[in-house]
């Protein structure tokens, strides 16, 4: 499903060149649950954004479903992201002025259809947020916010979910709840790439990638 060939990403920071990903090469198959681990600054988030078509690598290629992701025109890449990839971030990145339903429906590619509205309501129900559908994110607990972010990521029935430390700000109970929802997605045939520090995903992840200073040091 995803193939990375010698993917390198460098940044300039305070005049110096920093290598965030160093010739990363790996293949992730459809239906895998992959955990990515590594110390801070090891390039985990960079890897995730690069896999999601959000950050062009400095060198190397990323293939998604057999297509060279960064050879696609930006609009085509955006369509692919919208239809096939869901993101979940540690800081939730919810839109503060939209209610829960509005936040989930934000993922709809155009004006939400009745079917998309029904699905959004169903997802909020599945994730235990139905009663708060008209609330705003600021009124939710951290665990509820992350579940809302998961619901948004699931709206378009993506093939892949990229989760960047989604349990980083959660207590163990809420962390387990979020991981359980990602595992459910995986059990239904979805692919998950999860960047994590903790061990909450250990029982679900079928594969572990270890990064250190941008390099893949364990698979």
């Amino acid at each position: 499903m995803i193939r990375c060939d010698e993917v390198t990403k460098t940044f300039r920071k305070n005049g110096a060149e920093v290598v965030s990903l160093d010739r990363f090469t790996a293949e992730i198959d459809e239906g895998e649950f992959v955990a990515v681990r590594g110390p801070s600054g090891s390039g985990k988030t960079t890897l995730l954004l690069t896999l999601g078509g959000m950050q062009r690598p400095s060198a190397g290629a990323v293939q998604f479903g057999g297509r060279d992701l960064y050879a696609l025109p930006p609009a085509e890449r955006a369509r692919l992201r919208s239809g096939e990839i869901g993101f979940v971030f540690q800081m939730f990145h919810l839109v503060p002025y939209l209610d829960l339903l509005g936040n989930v429906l934000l993922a709809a590619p155009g004006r939400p259809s009745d079917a998309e509205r029904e699905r959004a309501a169903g997802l909020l129900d599945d994730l235990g947020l139905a009663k708060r559908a008209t609330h705003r994110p600021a009124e939710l607990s951290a665990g509820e916010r992350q579940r809302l972010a998961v619901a948004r990521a699931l709206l378009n029935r993506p093939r892949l979910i990229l989760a960047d430390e989604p349990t980083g700000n959660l207590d163990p109970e809420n962390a387990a709840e979020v991981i359980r929802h990602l595992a459910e997605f995986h059990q239904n045939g979805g692919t998950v790439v999860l960047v994590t520090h903790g061990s909450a995903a250990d029982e679900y992840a079928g594969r572990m990638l270890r990064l250190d200073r941008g390099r893949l040091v364990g698979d």
Partner: protein
Amino acid sequence: MTVWAHILREVGFRKLNALFSLLGLTLAVTIVAASQLLAEADERETRRVTRDMGFNLRLIPAKTDLGQFYRDGFSRHAMEAATLDRLATQLTNNVSFNHLVGSLRRDYTINGQDILLVGLSETYVAPGQGKKPMGFEIKEGTIHIGSEIARWQELKKGDAMHVGVRRFTVANDPIETGTPDDITIFARLEDAQSILGLTGKINEIEAIDCLCLTADEDPLAILRREIGGILPEVQVVHQRILADARAKQRQTREKVNAVVLPSVLVAGAVWVALLAVLNVRDRRQEIGILRALGKGGGRIAGLFLGKAVLLGFVAAALGVALGTWVVLEFGPSLFPVTKKAIHANWALAAQLIVATPVFAALASFIPAMLAVSHDPAETLRED
């Protein structure tokens, strides 16, 4: 969710940003609307006041002795009325004079009272200017008389009066002006020519110079060159005090307009742009997640430009209403002579309601492009 629904919710959430943008735009529109309405009122007032000041150019036969002219107030020499027609045919927007009136002035005695009899032609204006005649219109069979004549002859509006062998109706309510007009009868040029036995003659062409130059800029040299080229048989008398007053009034208004309008536009644009930049900064994470969700640059730019258009539209409506109210409320005390002509200008209102959203969108264009070009990965990694 539609872009407009999205915009409305964001405006409701970041009320202060929207409020300050709205206030800035409303203030700018208020100033523009009020200044335009005041400029119109000022122009009307200027036109009226300068009309009341009278003509500032007097073209008299070249052989006139200026001593006699200033002593008597008119030339004892006459010229052909066709002289006026020759000058009138040269009236274009490229010459420095306008509002031509041919006149025949003579002293005259009526029932033992020494008066001035003035015959006035119709007013000639440059084509396409649509300006109203400077003087009053004298209808056929009527005359306008001064207050001293009315008192001496015991006449009032509507009374019949004989001048020579001709019978006229007094068309005006004589009012004391404290000028030679109080002992003047104004008649149609043909009537005065007939009464004085000077058919086809005039002894003066009155006009207004359009140079709007003050005396130190020497408008007289320009006028003498232009008029002398057309009518070598006349000499030009320029009443500089009147001309300067006119010129200074217009110059002041033009200077104010030249400064006020651009300043308001620049200040308004900077204000809106700064607030839009702040809005973009506040919404960096939102822009990042919209990108992650596959929203294109058009949708993101639409959120910022659409907000500017919405606020511009509301500000235009508020500003036009406020600016018009200010002028209707305070305009009459500023322009007492033409206060009845001060009204709302619906054409201006329509223009502002169309132009302000466009202006606001243009002012927000750079911040919107900043939002579009913003690298979402930067904010999404800021955890």
